[in-house]
């Protein structure tokens, strides 16, 4: 298999990140295609994160948090689940194959499940092939490792970030 998919994972700090830690402590071997971004809670996930990940070259995305009723913050995972339900339809609309995104619950004790989620997602996305649709549409403006437009400028909130600072970031 030549194509190695690139997967970005958004996980909560308390369950899935700790579950992934456990997978490490247990030396569970898994595909090396996943890059984890740690968040306090899946409730923190703005679906624009997922869109951004695809824009920046991810072929697949994993969203994983605490099981229902186990959320460290009581209900953040429910908000995430509800938001994701809506987001799936948006993905369909945007032409992103929903199979590129895995939404799962992995608790702090489920190292094995994390390994399975990683391997299954990698295998599934490998089968789907590279995610090129966005790049074909956006042309050369985004791809090629060039800096992407600042998300704050895009969101119209440029005043919150120092323009000098943003410029200097070596993306």
């Amino acid at each position: 298999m030549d194509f190695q998919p690139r997967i970005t994972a958004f996980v909560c700090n308390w369950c899935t990140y700790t579950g992934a830690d456990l997978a490490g402590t247990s030396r569970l071997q898994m595909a090396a295609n996943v890059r984890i971004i740690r968040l306090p809670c899946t409730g923190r996930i703005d679906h624009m994160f997922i869109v951004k990940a695809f824009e920046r070259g991810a072929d697949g995305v994993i969203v994983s948090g605490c099981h229902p009723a186990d959320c460290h913050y009581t209900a953040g995972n429910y908000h995430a689940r509800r938001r994701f339900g809506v987001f799936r339809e948006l993905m369909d609309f945007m032409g992103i194959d929903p199979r590129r995104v895995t939404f799962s619950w992995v608790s702090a004790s489920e190292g094995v499940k994390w390994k399975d989620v990683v391997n299954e997602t990698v295998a599934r996305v490998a089968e789907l092939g590279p995610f090129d649709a966005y790049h074909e549409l956006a042309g050369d403006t985004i791809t090629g490792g060039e800096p992407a437009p600042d998300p704050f400028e895009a969101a119209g909130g440029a005043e919150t970030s120092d323009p000098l600072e943003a410029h200097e970031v070596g993306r």
Partner: protein
Amino acid sequence: MARIGVFVCHCGENIARTVDCARVVEELKSHPGVVHSEDYKYMCSDPGQALVRKAIEENDLTGVVVCACSPHMHEKTFRGAAAKAGLNPFLCEMANIREHCSWIHEDRGEATDKAIDIGRTIIEKVKHNVPLETIRIPVTKRALVIGGGIAGIQAALDIADGGAEVVLVEKESSIGGHMSQLSETFPTLDCSQCILTPRMVEVLQHPRIKLHSYSELESLEGYIGNFKATIRKKARSVDEDLCNGCGDCQAACPSRKIASEFDAGTGKRSAIYVPFPQAVPNIPVLDRVNCTRFKAKRKGIEKDVCGKCQEACLKGAIDYEQEDSFVTEDVGAVVVATGFQLYSIGRDQPAGLKGYGEYGYGDVPDVIDGMQFERLASASGPTGGEILRPSDGKPPKTVVFVQCVGSRDPEKGIPYCSKICCMYTAKHTMLYKNKMHDGKAIVFYMDIRAGGKGYDEFTRRAIEDDGAQYVRGRVSRIYRDGDVVKVWGFDTLSGEQVVVDADMVVLATAMRPQPGIAELAQKLSISYDEHGFINEAHPKLRPVETNTAGIYIAGACQAPRDIPESVAMASATAAKVLGLFSADELEREPTVALVNEQTCIGCFSCEQVCPYGAIEHVDVCDVEGHICGVVARVNPGICQGCGTCVAVCPSKSVELQGFTDEQIYAEINALGSW
């Protein structure tokens, strides 16, 4: 200009075996913004930390990235090291290349590439980190305890003995709770009142405990360390300061046939009454529902009727005009110890529950519940401790005890085990047999659950020494047949139907949370389960905390609990409360949400999703001081930092410090270059 230092740890061989640390150092050295990059065998060791400190000082670093283990492992260590070198600790982050990389991959090339990616992601994040200051919140060293049963009493005494002030609120006119109603306690057969009443008196006499009896919590505002509780002192019709507890009013009251709640309906009381002789405080309360004077008033009779208690009171303490009053108390912590009620098996059932009409409770006078049996067996009860059946006052020769009435019966709406019934039924059979040597005690049970110190020995003693006859099976029907109570049951061990002609039947009914628990939980913004028991923050590791900081739980309000467990929980809450009170200021991680009040549109979507009620409304005024809008503000004392508000904010006006949009997008963008 960012000046980031990167420190790559070998973790002995743990990382270095599969990750080429030298290549990681080289690659990251050339990453924009990185001015220093080095590796070391054990970065967390003293010399390793010294390297970090030295590099910060020598290179004037503005950020530190430690490529090592999980942040759950050593984030604190390295943030501490950064702080020692004068760098704000929140400018230091961990890149997890051990648990998430070297330990889970075998291919050295792949693992090294991934480690470099992880390092880059965190470097990009750190560029957007800002110095954060630990949040310090002043703490009012005073605790509110809600509920004056054994759990509340224990919590109040332990906290007060630890040096803090306590406000104890009890909704009944006396503290003592269910324990004061019990005859004896398992597994020692200690007299319940003998061990409880000295503690009740201790509460009353304690210089640091303020008791509000016949009072309820009206509202609670504020947050950990800084609560303001409003307490409704219900109109007792007796001036608490004037009353000396002589009991003349009670003796003078002509309405004497009211079913006593304390005796679970087996005894009678007057309209103005002290629930039991050892009540604390020993101040009567006038039951306005049953008082002749108030009954007449409700019927529209203008003239004052009765008034015998007022005439009898030499202190002039009776005040018919008294109204509910309110007091506010500033407290820093709250202990909820509201206890339980017994499942009412009669016809009237709350939604979701079904009664046990087939057991004849309420129709057959000689079918009683466990608490009524306690009162019959109690020396302070209506029969003076003689076990006499309610219908004709005769001593019952055959008593049937039915366990699991309600408990473990999803059909009736209660799937959980009430935990105490196996033990108290065994106790009941012993109390009965000890008083009625020739009597016959028959117990219908599903399983005997006697886990606990001395508990199994206790149930065995009931069976083997005291001769209680245990029948494994359920009872289908109980009805009156002339002088006897017929009990139809099934013995699942012999496979035969059993019919017992009993003189009295005692039903071990399920434990349920107190009525009104949902309203109380809403006032406190704590959560409760589908049965109404209050949820603990973590079932194993934080059993006495709630998800609202500063609010703790003890006893049967959390789940069915027996006395030793309730007391243990109460002492645990006291330890938590005293721990909270041990410093003048409470320190909290600054990773909380912050609203940009300039851009907030005041939609309060954040308020709807915040699980902690941390969102406050703030008025925005124009130059002339007129209110021209309302925006949200996050109370940092309450916020726990989940960030759910950030994701729902339509105007992007909330940021979660430590996990800002800028930081996360920087991480995502960094991944774009792999």
